[in-house]
C-alpha cells in the first residue's frame, strides 16, 4: 500500500466522517426496503456444518416481500459482487417471506482449494429481497423484481441484493458480538420502553441546527470481550475491530457509525417525524463477519 494510498484513504475517511461526501440523505435513514444485516449462528463453520442465517429486513412501505437465497462456493473474488457473479444457480431458492435460510457447508469446501488458499475458503450466501415477483434474469444484477401492481420491472435500487460470508475453518471459532445495554441520555433504555421526544424544526440533515433540548444521546454498550483477539490456526494474529451502525426510519444521527469502544451518538427528530413513531436499529459488527442487533422505538410529539 503506497504512501499516497494511505494518505488518500485517511483523507477520505476524515472527509466522510465530517460529512463531506455529498448532499445526500444519510444511509442511516431507512425510508424504503433495506436489509440491514444477516446474522449467522456460526460466522466460522466447519465443512459439513449446518449454518442458520437470519436477516434483518425493513420495508418502510410494509409490502409483502419475496426472498431468494443462494450460495457461491469459494468465489474468485472476495467482494460481494464477486460472489453474486459466482452464484451457483443450483442452490437458489425463491420463496415469499423467507427471512431465514439454512444450509450446510460443502464437505470439500476446504479440501477443494490449494493449501495456500485454505485460510480463505468460504461460502457466500446471496440474499435477494424483492417487494414483488422475483425471478432470475440477465444483466448487471442477475435478478429481476417486478412490481405486482404495475407489472413492470423495478429499478435496481428498489430491491436488495446482498451477500453474507461464512468462512470455512476446522479449528477456529468466531462468536457474534453482543449488545449488553442500550442507553438513552445516559440511562438504561429497555427494549419495551418507547421514548417521547419533541421534534427539531429542521427539514434537512443538519444535526447541529437543533437545540440541546432536542438532541438526545444514544449509547450502545458492547462488552470489550466482543472484540476477539488471538492467533488463528494458520498462525495469523488478529484483533477484531467492532463498530456500531445506527439506523432509524426518521431523524438525524450525529454519527451514523461509531467504534464499539465509544459507541455514543446523538439523535434528533426532524420536523417530518412529528406525530410519528420512529423505529431504530443498532447493528454491531465485527470485521470477521460477526453481527448482532437490537431495536427501539421513539414517539415524536405532534408540533
Amino acid at each position: 500500500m503506497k504512501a499516497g494510498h494511505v494518505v488518500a484513504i485517511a483523507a477520505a475517511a476524515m472527509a466522510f466522517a465530517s460529512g463531506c461526501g455529498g448532499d445526500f440523505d444519510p444511509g442511516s435513514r431507512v425510508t424504503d426496503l433495506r436489509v440491514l444485516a444477516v446474522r449467522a449462528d456460526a460466522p466460522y463453520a466447519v465443512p459439513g456444518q449446518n449454518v442458520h442465517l437470519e436477516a434483518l429486513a425493513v420495508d418502510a412501505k410494509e409490502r409483502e416481500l419475496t426472498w431468494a437465497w443462494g450460495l457461491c462456493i469459494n468465489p474468485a473474488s472476495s467482494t460481494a459482487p464477486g460472489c453474486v457473479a459466482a452464484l451457483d444457480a443450483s442452490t437458489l431458492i425463491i420463496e415469499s417471506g423467507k427471512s431465514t435460510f439454512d444450509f450446510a457447508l460443502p464437505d470439500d469446501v476446504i479440501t477443494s482449494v490449494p493449501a495456500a488458499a485454505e485460510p480463505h475458503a468460504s461460502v457466500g450466501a446471496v440474499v435477494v429481497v424483492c417487494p414483488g415477483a422475483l425471478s432470475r434474469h440477465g444483466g448487471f444484477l442477475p435478478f429481476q423484481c417486478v412490481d405486482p401492481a404495475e407489472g413492470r420491472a423495478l429499478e435496481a435500487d428498489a430491491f436488495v441484493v446482498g451477500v453474507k460470508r461464512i468462512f470455512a475453518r476446522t479449528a477456529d471459532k468466531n462468536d457474534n458480538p453482543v449488545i449488553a445495554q442500550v442507553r438513552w441520555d445516559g440511562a438504561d433504555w429497555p427494549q419495551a420502553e418507547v421514548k417521547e421526544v419533541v421534534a427539531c424544526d429542521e427539514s434537512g440533515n443538519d444535526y447541529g441546527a437543533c437545540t440541546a433540548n432536542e438532541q438526545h444521546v444514544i449509547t450502545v454498550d458492547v462488552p470489550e470481550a466482543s472484540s476477539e483477539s488471538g492467533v488463528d490456526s494458520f498462525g495469523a494474529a488478529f484483533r477484531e475491530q467492532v463498530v456500531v451502525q445506527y439506523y432509524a426510519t426518521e431523524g438525524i444521527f450525529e454519527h451514523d457509525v461509531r467504534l464499539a469502544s465509544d459507541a455514543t451518538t446523538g439523535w434528533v427528530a426532524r420536523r417530518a417525524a412529528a406525530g410519528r413513531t420512529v423505529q431504530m436499529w443498532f447493528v454491531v459488527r465485527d470485521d470477521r463477519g460477526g453481527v448482532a442487533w437490537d431495536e427501539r422505538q421513539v414517539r415524536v410529539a405532534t408540533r
Partner: protein
Amino acid sequence: MPVTFSSRRRCHAALFTLALLFAPPSVFAQGAHSDALVPPRLLETVEPDYPLQEKTRGETATVVLTLEIDDGGRVERAIVTNSGGASFDAAALEAAARLRFVPAARGGRAIRSKIPFQFAFTLSTTPDAGAPAPHPSSAPDKSAVGPATGAGGSAADTADTASSAFVDIEVRGERAPRETTKRVLERSEILTMPGTGGDALHAVENLPGVARTSGISSNLIVRGSGPQDTGVFADGVWLVNAFHFGGITSVVPTEVLERLDFYPGNFSPEYGRQMGGIIDLGIRSPRQDRFGGLLQFDLLDGRLLAEGPLGPKTRVLVAGRRSWVDAWLGPVLRSTGTGVSVAPAYYDYQAMIEHDLSSSTKARLLFFGADDRFLLTIRSPSSDDPGLGGEIGQKESFVRLQARLDSRLSERARFINMVAVGTNGAHFALGSNHVDGTYKVIDSRSDLRVELARSVTAVAGVALLAGHYDVSLRAPQRQGDGEVPAPIFAAPKYTLAGAGMLWRPGAYAMLELAPGAGLKLLPGLRVDYSSESAQWTFDPRFTARLDIARTPLRTTLKGGVGAFHQPPQPFESLAPFGSPSVKNNLAIHYSLGIEQQLSREVEISLEGFYKDLRELVVGRSKTSSALGGTEYTNTGEGRTFGTELLARFKPGGRFSGFVAYTMSRSERRIDASRAFSIFDFDQTHILNALASYKLGRGWSVGARFRYVTGNPYTPYVGAVADLDAGAYAPLASPFANSARVAPFHSLDLRVDKTWTFASWRLTAYLDVRNTYNRQNPEAMTYNYNYSQSQTLAGLPFLPIAGVRGEL
C-alpha cells in the same frame, strides 16, 4: 524543448555585487576623501556566443581578460591574459568589446581604468544523470596590471584596479540533448511559479505531456503512463517515494537542487527499468565563494539551509525542513472528535561535503533523507465503509548516504562513479489492517564517456540496484484490474510475510555520432536483469537530431524510437504477495518533432508521440487459488498517442513564461480479447499558460492558467449490499471510463517582493490558488447504495503566504 534547470542568463548584477563585497573597503570610500577612487561598475553586460564546436564537444573554459576602459565606460582594448582556447578567446573578446561600464572615477571625475575580467564558459546540461553542472571557478589569482595609457590620457588619469576583485561573468551554453526531448526548469523559475509552492516536482506538471493530478497527489502521469511508470531520481539515486505524504511537497527541496531534467519519453539508455518518463533532480554544489544560508517559513513548513567553503577546495551544505501543519491541524482534528496521537508531520534533511581532489576530479559525500508520520483514531468511521476508521497511521522514511567521484580523465574522457546505501522503512495501519516493510538498498552507477574522434563519442556504464526487503502485512486482497473497490471492513484478510534479496544489475552503451553538420545520431542499448522476474531484457534505442538551420535562428528536426522494459511492482511478483512467474512490462516509444527558435528568447517545440504498451502486468482476483488472493499475468496491452506543443519565452530578463499544450489519448485493455477502453488517467486536452514579470524594485508577479479535460470515470449501474460491512459495493458499467467529469480550469496568481540589504535578502510572497474559486469537479461521490451521484469539488480558493531570508 529542453528547459534546463541551470540558468542561461544569470543576473550579472548579483555577481558584480558579490565581487564588490570582496573588494577592500577603501575602494568604496566615496566622498570621504577628495581623491577617493571609485572603480568602474558594469552597466550593460553582454553574453558571448558559446562556440558551437566546443559546445558540441562538451568543452568548457575560463577566459581571463584585462580590459582597458575609457572615461566614457566603453572598452577600448581587451587583452587575453589567461587563454581558454582560441575559439573561447575569440568569443570572449568579441563580447568584451560590447560591454558597457560606469567609468571609474577619482574625486568625482571619470577616468580611464584597467581591470581584470573573466568569462566562464560552462555547460548547463551534464552528460549523465545527477552530475551537477560545473560551478564557476573561484576568483583566479589577481595579477598586477599596469596603468592604462592611451590617447588623450595620462597615467595619472587612470586607475590601476588590480586590487579589486575580478568581474566574473558566467556563460552557460546548452548542450544539445542526447534524448529526443529533454525539458529543464530553472530554479528561479520554479521558486516563483504560481500554484506550485515553489516545488520542483509539482512544477513538472506544467510541462507538456504531464497530466494534472487532483488535490494532493504523488501521481506523475507522463504521456498517458501509469503513475508507477515514471521514475524520479536525485543525483542518480532512485527515490521510491518522491513526495511527502503522497503529494504535498517533494522530499528534496528546491533550494538544494541545481537542475531538474525531465524526459517525457524516448530517454537515453543511461536510464532503465522505467517505461514512462524520467525526472532527474540534480543536487547542486555548495557555494564556494562564501558562507550563505536560507531561512523560509510558509503555511506548511519551515526550512533552514547553510552552506559555504571550508578552504579553497572544500565546501559544505547542511539543510533541513520540517512541517508545522501538525501545530494547527492537530487541534482542528481533535475538534472534530478525531483522536490525534501523532499529528501529521514531515521533515527532510540534506548534508553534503564536496572536495576538489584535483583540478580534474571532484568528490562528494551526500547524506539525505525524509520522514513522514501520523497516527489518528477516527472514532466515527465512514458509513460507506466502516473499515475507514479506527486507528489510521503511517510512518514512512528513507535515508541515503551517497559517495560520488567525478573525474575528467583527459580532455576527451570523463568517468563518474556513484554509490549510495541506505534504507527505506514503511508502516501503514488502517483499522485492523497493516503493512510493514523495510528495504535496505545499494544503488550504484559507473559511467564513462570518451570522445573517440571528433565526431564520435562513446558512452558506457554499469548500474546496480540491489537490496534486502522484509515485508509483512495483514490486509484485504488487492483488487484485480478493472474491479471496483469494495468495502474493506469485513473483507477476508491476508496475513502474509516475505523477505529476500532483489537484484537489478544493468549496463548500457551509446554512441554519439556527428557525421555531418548539424546531424547527430545516437544509437544505444540498455541491458537489465531483474531477479524478481528472473528476466534479462534488451532495450535498443535510437535518437536523431538534425539542425536544418542554425543561423540566425535554429531549426531542429528530432525523432526517436526505443524499447523500455519495466520490472513488475514488488507486490505483483514477489511471493507470497504476487505471482513469481510474471515478467517485465514493455513499452515501445516513437516520437517525431521539430524545434524552432523564433528569437534568442523565444522557442517553439512541437512533437508527436506514440507508445505501444505490451505484456503489461494485470491482476485478477483468485482468492481460491492465489496465495495473496490476486494472480498476476502479462496479458495487458495499451497504447498512447498525442501531440505536445511548448512555446517558451526563456527566463533571464524581466519576462518569462511558456504555454504548454498536450492533446493525447491513452487506452488499455486487460487482454487481447477485449476492446480498448480509456485509461484511468487519460486527459485529452491539457493547457498550461504561465507568465512571470519582474516589475522592478524587487517586485515580481506571476500567473498560471490551466485548462484540462475532466477525469474519466466508470459509471455505476447498481450495487450489492455487503452484509458483513453494512455497506454497499458498487457494480461498474462494463464500459470502463466511459464518462468524464466536467473540465478543470483555474487561475493561480503569485506576487513576490524582495528587499535587498547589504548582506542579505528578504522575500515575502503570496501564492493564491484557484483565484476565482471555481468548484472544479475532481471525482464522483455517491449516496449509500450508489443510486444517486454528484461531483466532488477540489481545492477552493487557497492563499498561501511565506517569507524567505537569504544570506
